[in-house]
């Protein structure tokens, strides 16, 4: 008898579990990241951020008893257009209609036509190429176009009284685009900007830094600002050489947004780099409100889980994953075309780790609240300190903390 009850209970239990399992609907989300090629160092950050987001989403869905689950399929783009395209084609073959990534504009350019033709929603966390600012396509980009950051830096330079800037930038799509944006904004106000590009695949940039110093001496160290447009690996190397350069030590430096990410400061970067950045008063903008609790929570969780600081792009990837999931839930079924239609509205109401996601007519992030930051010595170490804010709507620069 007891055995019978036990068997019955067990049967019932299995049936319930089975039913619950059968009711679970799993939607795939494609993750396109660079694991090899030029962006290889960035890929794992993005993968980890997306994984974290999906785990949080699952915890939430479980708590409310929702049967929906998401499964990430992570594909390597090799940081190339062909790699991006083939990766997306493979995802499409596996039935994926919603994709987060790719990281690089090159990969995004390679897959754009395919995404449009096959109606696959692609949410890039980081592509900034102006050539992809296209309305009515299936590619959304969560990062504000660099034209905004260019305008912000131009305003800051003007406020600091510079009429000349020497822009030292990565010779890739991001660096060239950012440099051009700043040049146009700065020269529109009657100032002068000079560009100096470097090959971002070098691994070492001492020769380029020497040339930067020489050019700066020609232009005049006093009256010319240096603007560095770099990512972390090249940026740290450049600053490491610049710190030992007598000319560049006297210059006033500005930096693109990555230069104010934690990865540029101790303990993630050498102390002497931080000291140099403080010495030259490295200034610039980070397009994310720092007081954002979503970001603080994300960063803390990321640190606990992976033992290191997330890269700046990881914030955007985290948001991309959340947005992909939310959009799917809003639509109520798995459909790339409908998700694409719903996406801008979902994004508009969303505040993520990387800030607000109001999109412009091209499907790119439009809200431009940029924190003005400067590298300072803080309690015996070095850190970026917020001293103002620039807002794209009005184009005004406010200083809180001169």
């Amino acid at each position, binding site marked *: 008898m007891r055995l019978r009850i036990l068997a019955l209970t067990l049967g019932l239990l299995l049936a319930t579990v089975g039913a619950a399992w059968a009711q679970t609907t799993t939607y795939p989300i494609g993750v396109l990241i660079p694991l090899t090629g030029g962006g290889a160092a960035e890929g794992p950050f993005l993968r980890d951020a997306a994984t974290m987001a999906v785990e949080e989403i699952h915890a939430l869905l479980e708590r409310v008893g929702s049967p929906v689950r998401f499964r990430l399929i992570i594909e390597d783009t090799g940081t190339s*257009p062909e790699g991006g395209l083939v*990766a997306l084609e493979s995802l499409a*073959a596996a039935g994926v209609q919603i994709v987060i990534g790719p990281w690089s504009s090159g990969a995004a*350019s390679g897959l754009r036509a395919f995404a449009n033709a096959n*109606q696959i929603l692609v949410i890039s966390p980081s592509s900034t*190429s*102006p050539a992809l600012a296209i309305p009515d396509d299936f590619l959304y980009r969560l990062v504000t176009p660099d034209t905004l950051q260019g305008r912000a830096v131009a305003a800051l330079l003007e406020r600091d009284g510079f009429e000349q800037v020497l822009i030292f930038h990565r010779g890739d799509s991001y660096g060239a685009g950012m440099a051009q944006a700043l040049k146009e904004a700065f020269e529109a106000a009657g100032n002068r900007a000079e560009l100096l590009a470097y090959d971002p695949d070098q691994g070492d940039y001492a020769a380029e830094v020497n040339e930067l110093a020489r050019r700066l001496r020609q232009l005049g160290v006093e009256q010319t600002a240096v603007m560095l447009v770099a990512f972390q690996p090249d940026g740290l190397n450049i600053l490491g050489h610049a710190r030992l350069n007598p000319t560049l030590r006297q210059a006033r430096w500005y930096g693109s947004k990555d230069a104010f990410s934690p990865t540029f400061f101790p303990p993630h970067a050498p102390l002497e780099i931080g000291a140099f950045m403080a010495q030259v008063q490295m200034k610039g903008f980070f397009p994310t409100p720092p007081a954002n609790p979503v970001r603080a929570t994300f960063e803390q969780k990321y640190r606990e889980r992976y033992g290191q600081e997330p890269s700046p792009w990881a914030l955007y990837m985290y948001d991309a994953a959340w947005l992909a999931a939310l959009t799917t839930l809003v639509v109520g079924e798995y459909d790339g075309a409908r998700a694409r239609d719903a996406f801008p509205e979902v994004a508009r109401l969303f505040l993520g780790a990387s800030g607000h996601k109001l999109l412009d007519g091209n499907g790119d992030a439009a809200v431009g609240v940029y924190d003005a930051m400067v590298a300072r010595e803080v309690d015996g170490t070095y850190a970026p300190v917020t001293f103002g804010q620039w807002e794209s709507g009005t184009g005004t620069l406010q200083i809180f903390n001169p």
Partner: protein
Amino acid sequence: MDLTPLVVSFVTFFGIYLILALSMNLEYGLTGLPNFGKVFFYSVGAYTSAFVVSRLMLALGGASLVPWSAEAAVFREELARSEPWLAIGLFLLCLVLAALVGAALGSLLSSPALRVQDVYLALILLVVAEIARVYVRATEGFIGGPHGLGGIPNPFRFIEGAGPRGLAYAGLVLALAAGAYVLVERITHSPFGRLMKAVRDDELAAQVLGKRTHWVKAQVMAVGSALAAVAGVLYAFFTEFVGTEDFDSQLTFTVLLMVILGGAGNHRGVVAGTLIMTAIDRFTRPSFLALLGLQLPVDINYARHALIGVLLVLLILYRPQGLAPEGRVRTAAREEVRHLGVSS
């Protein structure tokens, strides 16, 4: 499940790589010219397409836009949709132009082979490919420098629906690849093909028999490079974007692996090699494993490259002749001597 995207992707890339592999086989497999600059000639086709299409379409449409801007790309795509014949005409023009430019550059770059041995020729062409990539990336006025150039509209843009459009283009690519196969087969099984092999086996012996071996090499490089450039055109119109990140030497090595896997000197083997390599590339991806419901303990995205490396090394160690050994040259001569009872 709709398998059209997979079929389109597989067939299109198989066709493009097959053309590259066949051209490599003509040069390296049969003539002994290690063209380690294959990716350069491939990029020549892509750059030609990007350059010609962007300028011509803007000029014909009367738009004065920066060729690599987003607006220009959208303009070209719209124009291609509304004017199918213009799009198709430009595509054909690019095929012809790229083949000509490729042939000219190929025969020009065969001239180092006059002076140096094969390993040095390989290094020279490898470096030339790298020089071209760095140069184009840093030169904005050509195809947009680091940004690359989008909006190279597919000639079948007028066809509604991704599936039919993709299939139409895949069919076109496959047809051209088949044409390339017939072409290289014809060349191989001809007195000229015999001469190519003679140059590979012993160039000096061919010379003292009165053969202009340098001219043979120049012609082979011209044909091979024209084919590679055609593959580049097909690629550019498939992705509708051309950027320099695609043209590093990794691609050359992939194509070389296809040739060695299939069997250098045997075109049918090379078809098999290309097919297998394309299949390995597609079916070791996480998407495919997800389709099968497989979970692997290591990140396949890294491991699959290592696997391909292992395959290459094992192949060279244990089966250097590849899947299919090289055959004899088949010409009318063979029937003739069968009459005379020489060849058994």
